[in-house]
């Protein structure tokens, strides 16, 4: 048991941190910086989790966590978790050899950006499709229906689409530039881009040799959830640092805010929340790395991280006071982004329900086995 990074992992962290320092403005109609995406590719970060024979680095969930955490620290809007971990993870898990060779290699090189189009309005975060249907025709598969909100759906170069085949949800690959695919893009509350994607007899190919079953979504969601939680952890670190810094420098009634015990004690509670989140994120990444077979791990991680994120996000603004409400100051953006992450890949209620189910059949968890 060890909770420390090795030298290579520290080097990776420092390299990513350094790279992220030099950011250009993000084009508003894109929602992220394509130049940064290219730089991340050049550093090998986009191919990190994929095997070397498809152009990846063959690294593992710990390295993915490290990268995601750094992205979170600067609120980087690049679709690392969405494209590399989630969509890339799905292709790696369920794609055919040919899909591995083409899609993953292009993703690792920054030339392709696959995105999963799964969410539909008025649904929760399960693995089912509701209103999107795949039909087998003599010319192959076609897809009909609407997916929304699809994060980064407008910039995606490849769409992985979940669709009903009969009563089963299966996965397909769709080229968004083909006829029958309409994308309407707009901004999320945290300034990223999201799309409504309507499919009308859109040509689709199965993910995998036969279309993969929705069960592959479960593992991919687990991996993406833990990476997203690492991103949230990075954001929480900086949110607390920023708040502490503000308490030290800002004066009221002639003294720094850090003289007000009612405030410093609340900062202490935020720190506890942060460290609990750090513990579960590292746990989650290590479980993935070691193939721990508890399907509830991602839910454990997301539940704690969601609680910590809401606590830290709300308190960070409150302890800043008015300035925390302004767009000009950074802290509100952290709270904003943390709110988005809370409601991505399952919120606290969703994951708690998974953990509560079956409590009559299983013992209280024993982490050390």
């Amino acid at each position, binding site marked *: 048991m060890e909770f420390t990074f090795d030298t290579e992992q520290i080097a990776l962290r420092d390299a990513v941190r350094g790279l992220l320092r030099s950011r250009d403005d993000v084009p508003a109609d894109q929602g992220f910086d394509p130049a940064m995406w290219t730089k991340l590719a050049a550093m090998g970060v986009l191919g990190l989790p994929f095997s070397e024979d498809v152009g990846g680095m063959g690294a593992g969930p710990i390295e993915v966590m490290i990268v995601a955490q750094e992205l979170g620290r600067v609120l980087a809007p690049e679709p690392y978790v969405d494209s590399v971990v989630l969509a890339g993870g799905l292709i790696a898990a369920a794609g055919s050899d040919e899909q591995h060779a083409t899609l993953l290699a292009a993703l690792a090189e920054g030339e392709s950006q696959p995105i999963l189009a799964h969410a539909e309005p*008025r649904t*929760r975060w399960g693995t089912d499709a509701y209103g999107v249907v795949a039909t087998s025709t003599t010319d192959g598969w076609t897809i009909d229906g609407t997916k*929304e*909100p699809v994060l980064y759906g407008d910039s995606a170069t490849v769409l992985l689409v979940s669709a009903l085949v009969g009563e089963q949800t299966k996965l397909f690959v769709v080229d968004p530039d083909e006829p029958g695919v309409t994308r309407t893009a707009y901004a999320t509350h945290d300034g990223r881009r999201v799309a*409504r994607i309507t499919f009308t007899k859109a040509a689709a190919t199965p993910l995998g040799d036969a279309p993969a079953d929705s069960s592959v979504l479960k593992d991919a969601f687990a991996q993406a959830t833990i990476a997203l939680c690492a991103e949230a952890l990075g954001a929480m670190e900086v949110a607390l640092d920023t708040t502490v810094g503000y308490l030290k420098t800002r004066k009221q009634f002639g003294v720094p805010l850090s003289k007000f015990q009612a405030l410093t004690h609340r900062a202490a509670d935020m720190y506890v929340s942060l460290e609990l989140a750090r513990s579960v994120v590292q746990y989650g990444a290590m479980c993935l790395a070691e193939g721990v077979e508890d399907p509830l791990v991602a839910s454990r991680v997301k539940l704690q991280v969601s609680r910590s994120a809401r606590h830290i996000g709300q308190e960070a603004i*409150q302890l800043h006071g*008015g300035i925390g409400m302004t767009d000009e100051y950074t802290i*509100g953006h952290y709270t904003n982004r943390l*709110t988005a992450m809370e*409601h991505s890949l399952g919120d606290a209620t969703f994951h708690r329900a998974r953990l509560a189910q079956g409590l009559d059949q299983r013992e209280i968890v024993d982490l050390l086995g």
Partner: protein
Amino acid sequence: MRLRLSAEDAAFQQDMRTFFTTQVPQETRDVIAHGKPLTRELIVETMQILNKAGLAVPHWPIEWGGRGWTTLQRHIWHEEMDLAGVPTPLAFNASMVGPVIAQFGSHEQKQRFLPATANLDIWWCQGFSEPDAGSDLASLRTTAVRDGNEWVVNGQKTWTTLGQWADWIFCLVRTDPDAPKKQQGISFLLFDLTSPGVTVRPIKLIDGGYEVNEVFFENVRVPADQLVGEENRGWDYAKFLLGNERVGVAPVGATKLRLRTARERALEPMADGSTLLADPLLAARFAELENELAALELTALRVAADSSDGRPDPASSILKLRGTQLQQDVTELLVDIAGHDSLATGAGEDSDVPSWAQRSVPTYLNYRKASIYGGSNEIQRTIIASSILGL
């Protein structure tokens, strides 16, 4: 002890409800019911409808439009407005500068300003907070120096709510920098925002909207007859103004309206035909919030029913503290009901994501202000601890 309204008050409530639901246009009230942003025009139009009916400034002296109502009646008036989704009279006019002028202003000032203030012909904003004088308001540094028959104002205000829509500002300025205590030597000045030397810079907020402003003064010349009351007594007037309100401090009606909306949302069928309210955990959260809101409403009624004088009451701090907590809790609930639909902020009308879900996070973020502005919850706790508990 009596829970029921007297026959008179019950009739009064009915009158209010009828007026607000029939005389204020449905389209105006839908803006609030659906949580959409209000425009300047809607606020002005509504306040003028209310003023015409004598419902804009009922707590003012009768000769200036007041109605001599009991506090309970004012409470009912306010709650019925909120519940009907009526934009309430602009606080800067109706609850802040108006009562100060009515109480401390000269007769000329009253004649000049009160009718226009009640009718929102003048839109006022508040020039109190400064970059280094927020919770610690008495540290303010904006100065006014007498020059002949004018005051010359220099300095900066901030957090000036809706200053971008305002015509005039009421402003705390330091007129005696040598006063022994920082609370002394402050005066209460009124002036036109179009005066040369005034710059209003809107501040973008985290929800993407604009509500507050920085206001800069560079040698702004203000006629001496626009100083309210006595020179260097401005702090007293500010305290009067801030402690003046005991009605509508806890936004019970508005929060109830939002909770009703949340309930309707949670009853709308999901894609799989289920409803969220069928989840016992969500139902329990509703029941808890509903009950907390009921306890707050009863507390607000106690404060309203048991006081007839207008003095500031530390009980207002409970209403402010608890009221903003619940206000925030309900905005949080709406985000959680929206789920991943809450990411679809800019989806617009063509989307299947309901528009309330699109607005849920900006509203949630916007209401983080509630526990900060108007005396932060930390300030309210300090007031309760010191003024009520004697700590």
